[in-house]
């Protein structure tokens, strides 16, 4: 286990360094002297490696750059926008899990029957629906036509105000959750189908366990392991969805900030935020792998 842990940690560090290298490479490619603006004019004649190390040193000291357009440090903008994005992503991911796990389970147990076909068809449609189309349809129906929910996300300055603004928060959360449910349910279905084919299910049935107990105690519990780790691995996709949802519903979170920064060529913000998201994703996938090893002893033994 320790050897596996060490190896996985070292891998994650290598990947993190590569993420910083990619972001720095993009900074160097950015037009208008964006790199010089971040590094200072004296850096122009330095070697790439020296520039990179200077930049990396600043990142490690928590200096993510400075937005001249907004006259704020990137760290400040991050602190202001991160809670909104985390709230949006957290709530919708929890809802998505709560819906997708039973859905996937039902599909697997009733494989090939009407319920499975209907849910599979729905999963196709939701998978193929761009986030902004889903958001637009929900807004047209619930906000423009029926006036039940707001067409714009919560605009309260503090995170408490955002989370308690149910009227305005419902549609963004629903949009992000529905997009995620399709992916999660599909995964849960195949995980449950895998579990159903295992010998321990057969053994439980042979012992005389009822179908209900087989599904709840054996299939569900064993399929949850890969699904829970899937959450850690889907971090980039969920952030990608959040970018669109925040832009659509005008929620001033990280995704909205990135969009605005890209439109206004504010490279310090786009790259600073991209770096933070990349780090989040690497940590997410590391936690997913570690969680997998903790929850499933077979992984531990296999990796020794």
């Amino acid at each position, binding site marked *: 286990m320790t050897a596996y842990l060490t190896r996985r940690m070292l891998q994650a560090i290598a990947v993190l360094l590569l993420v910083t290298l990619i972001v720095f490479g993009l900074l160097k490619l950015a037009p208008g002297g964006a790199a010089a603006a971040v590094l200072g004019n004296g850096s122009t004649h330095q070697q790439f490696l020296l520039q990179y190390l200077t930049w990396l040193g600043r990142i490690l000291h928590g200096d993510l750059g400075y937005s001249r357009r907004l006259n704020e440090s990137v760290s400040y903008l991050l602190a202001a926008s991160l809670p909104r994005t985390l709230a949006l992503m957290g709530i919708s991911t929890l809802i998505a899990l709560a819906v997708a796990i039973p859905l996937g389970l039902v599909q697997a147990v009733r494989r090939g029957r009407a319920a499975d076909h209907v849910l599979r068809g729905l999963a*196709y449609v939701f998978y193929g629906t*761009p986030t902004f189309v889903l958001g637009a*349809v929900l807004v047209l129906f619930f906000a423009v036509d029926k006036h039940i929910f707001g067409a714009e996300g919560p605009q309260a300055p503090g995170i408490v105000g955002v989370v308690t603004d149910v009227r305005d928060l419902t549609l963004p959360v629903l949009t992000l959750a529905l997009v995620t449910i399709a992916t999660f349910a599909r995964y849960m279905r195949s995980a449950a189908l895998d579990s159903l084919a295992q010998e321990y299910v057969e053994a439980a049935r042979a012992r005389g366990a009822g179908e209900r107990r087989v599904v709840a105690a054996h299939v569900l519990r064993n399929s949850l392991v890969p699904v829970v780790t899937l959450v850690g691995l889907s971090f980039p*996709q969920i952030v990608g969805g959040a*970018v669109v949802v925040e832009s659509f519903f005008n929620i001033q979170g990280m995704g909205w900030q990135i969009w605005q920064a890209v439109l206004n060529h504010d490279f310090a913000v*786009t790259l600073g935020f*991209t770096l933070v*998201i990349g780090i989040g994703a690497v940590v997410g996938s590391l936690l997913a792998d570690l969680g997998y090893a903790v929850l499933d002893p077979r992984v531990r033994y296999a990796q020794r």
Partner: protein
Amino acid sequence: MMTNQAAGEGAPVRGSRGRHAGPAAAGQPVSVQRAELVGRVRRGLVACRAHPLVTAGGLVVIAMVAFCFLGPALYHTDQTHVFLSQANLSPRAGHPLGTDGDGVDELGRLMKGGQVSLEVGAAAGLLAAVLGSLWGATAGYLGGAVDGAMMRIVDAAIAIPAVVLLLLLVSIYRPSTAMLILVIAGTAWLGTARLVRAEALTLRVREYVQAARVMGSGNARVILRHIAPNALSTIVVNVSFQIANAILLLATVSWLGLGVQFPSVDLGDMIGAATQTISDGYWWQILAPGTAIIVIVVAFTMLGDGLRDGFSADG
């Protein structure tokens, strides 16, 4: 997977028997030829029924391509001029899907936008699959430290959400159509690389690969002649998924205002323009292109799923 297929077991392999029968059929009476044809059609129908997902997905893709590329020849609309007196008309006679904010007919616009979505999506999806396959096959075949380094690069690039990476790249490079294809492929190839690498890991220990190496084939030759072709079923399935993905990515950046640039238009653009006036409730401006995207993406996804099921059943 593909190797067993050549033996012609299981599901009927179309064409293989017909080709052998070809020269002999020339001298046969018409009735035999007709029976041959009927038999071939019947075998085709059986194959279609055995793979409903492929059939449905394929038919819808063909229908959408026909709609977008042949449609304008049958349904003439003015897609260049602005008619403000005709702006935002709901569906009615003469404008079956209504008009947009510039008074341009929505159905005609759908064809024009669909062309760009399909062209860019197909090109970017194909490019991404080829790029990812080569990367994955090389990493998986070479193994060891090279594999480790190549796959860590993939891990790092996958950590950045595709939409964000795409936004960054289009803000650096002016988004012409060719550039959009390159940029979308450049963000989308990573998944394919992982898939094909896994496939290559199992292929590299096969006898024919070892035989090729013993006979002195270089790495490039083994990868291009043995690894990649034998991973072809995985790659073909992936092309279909990649096209669906590329169409979605293009629609997303266009919707965010950074994709296809005026006067060119894609389906995401149309929804982006309609989103600006969403509070006026012009539902047809969102539902028409929205449905078109969903239909195209679902068709390509079903095609990919069906092909995967088909390959794994045959193999």
